[in-house]
């Protein structure tokens, strides 16, 4: 009797997350769908001007998509070498005692609230970038990329480190026995064997960076234009939603457009998550 009750309660708990998920999907599609009918899919996705409060308004989100992609790719350029590099160091090279300290520290970086990253970016990095390049504002795509990159490092690092650590000892020994040194063994045997795990970490990092809102809201500058260089401000999709949601009127096209952006963002992250799952599954079966 008790066991049955336990089973029902846990089943209900599991069902809840499914209900929440479908509830969210349903509501964003319901609220976002009208904008596609009003503006048209291609004009919405490909339109260069985003003037939701003008009369007549423009609802083209290309500059927002480009903004998101620029800061996300910038973040990966920062975080992949740092994340994979620190994973190699922690897994392969660090003395056990250093590893014991370094590993939790890197993971602690993942626990820092994003608003604190944003504060750091606004107060310290952005003035530094402004002076370094002698530009009018330090709140731009570069600053956002660097801060997002630092946020993503622990994700890439910890997943890559797990993958590197799980490379079996016997193929490392095979490499040493053929006269390879430590460096050659890491580059030629360990990393290729851990490849799918490292890729999974990078994909998760991508998802984290493209979905991050607070940091980009605070440091990306917020201009809805397609940037010519990374030293210009951008307005990623997430910050557009967060910044404008409070100003919209229920049932207005602007509101529908923000939900439309949410749909685009949701689809991007969904595709990414599914790819990661597939990559990880392929790795398990190998």
């Amino acid at each position: 009797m008790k066991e049955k009750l336990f089973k029902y309660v846990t089943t209900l708990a599991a069902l809840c997350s499914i209900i929440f998920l479908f509830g969210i999907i349903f509501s964003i599609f319901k609220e976002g769908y009208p904008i596609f009918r009003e503006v048209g899919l291609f004009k919405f996705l490909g339109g260069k001007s985003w003037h939701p409060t003008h009369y007549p308004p423009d609802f083209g989100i290309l500059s927002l998509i480009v903004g998101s992609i620029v800061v996300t790719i910038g973040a990966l350029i920062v975080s992949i070498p740092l994340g994979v590099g620190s994973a190699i160091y922690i897994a392969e090279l660090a003395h056990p005692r250093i590893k014991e300290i370094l590993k939790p520290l890197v993971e602690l970086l993942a626990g820092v609230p994003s608003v604190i990253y944003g504060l750091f970016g606004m107060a310290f990095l952005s003035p530094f970038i402004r002076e370094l390049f002698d530009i009018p504002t330090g709140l731009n795509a570069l600053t956002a990329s660097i801060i997002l990159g630092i946020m993503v490092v622990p994700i890439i690092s910890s997943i890559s480190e797990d993958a590197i650590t799980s490379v079996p000892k016997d193929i490392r020994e095979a490499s040493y026995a053929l006269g390879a040194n430590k460096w050659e063994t890491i580059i030629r045997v360990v990393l290729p064997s851990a490849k799918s795990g490292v890729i999974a970490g990078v994909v998760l990092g991508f998802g984290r960076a493209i979905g991050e809102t607070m940091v980009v809201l605070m440091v990306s500058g917020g201009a809805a234009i397609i940037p010519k260089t990374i030293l210009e401000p951008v307005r990623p999709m997430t910050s557009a939603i967060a910044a404008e949601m409070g100003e919209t009127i229920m049932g207005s096209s602007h509101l529908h457009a923000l939900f439309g952006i949410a749909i685009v963002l949701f689809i991007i992250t969904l595709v990414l998550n599914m790819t990661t799952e597939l990559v990880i599954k392929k790795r398990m079966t190998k």
Partner: protein
Amino acid sequence: MVNEAIEVNGLNLWFGKKQILKDINLSIPEKKLTAVIGPSGCGKTTLLRCFNRMNDLNSDARIKGSIIIDGKDIYSNKTDPCSIRMKVGMVFQKPNPFPKSIYGNVAFGLHIKGIRDKNTIMEIVEKSLKNAWLWDEVKDRLNSSAFELSGGQQQRLCIARALATNPEVILFDEPTSALDPQATSKIEELVLELKNSVTVVQVTHNIGQAARVSDYTAFLYLGELIEFGLTEKMFTIPKDKRTEEYLEGKFG
């Protein structure tokens, strides 16, 4: 007259505080097959791994004594362990191919050696696979993953991989313990043929295998070398009582 390939002088080895090998003195003859036998835990694999300095990978290991290969002490400060391992190849207990293609596995040691010329590499890959009796089975799929091969084929691939760098000595650490009888006999025959061109040292816990394939046998017990000599002699008239009892199966 038999030349010696490996000369071991006063070799002692500790893992932490535990002494694994005790004052081993041994001359392993060139281009012969020497078997190292003994009950589990007697240090035979550890001894084998001294010959290519694989014990260096264990930070607990401490070694005293010398091992002379090619007139040089491989444990002298001047010796680079990587250069030793190119001269002294190794095949492990379980087949351990790299997650690369068949070609990539055999070419690995050549890349490490710094050989870049594609034709040279292909020639050596073909020759090594032929010498490991694998060529005919894989010549049409050199770019397939090594994991598609059976266990016995994988082990022969590992032998080809070890042969590719043209070593003077190949160490076999119970190479058939993870294989079925058919694959085992094929590897045994292959090893017999290999000793025509290289010195082979093989650890085995299978006394029958030692008797079948080896020219010389070393019997190790509790970290000491009890007896070393021609296999024929040792298996008919063992000098030491412990050797006799081990060969008769009284312990093991």
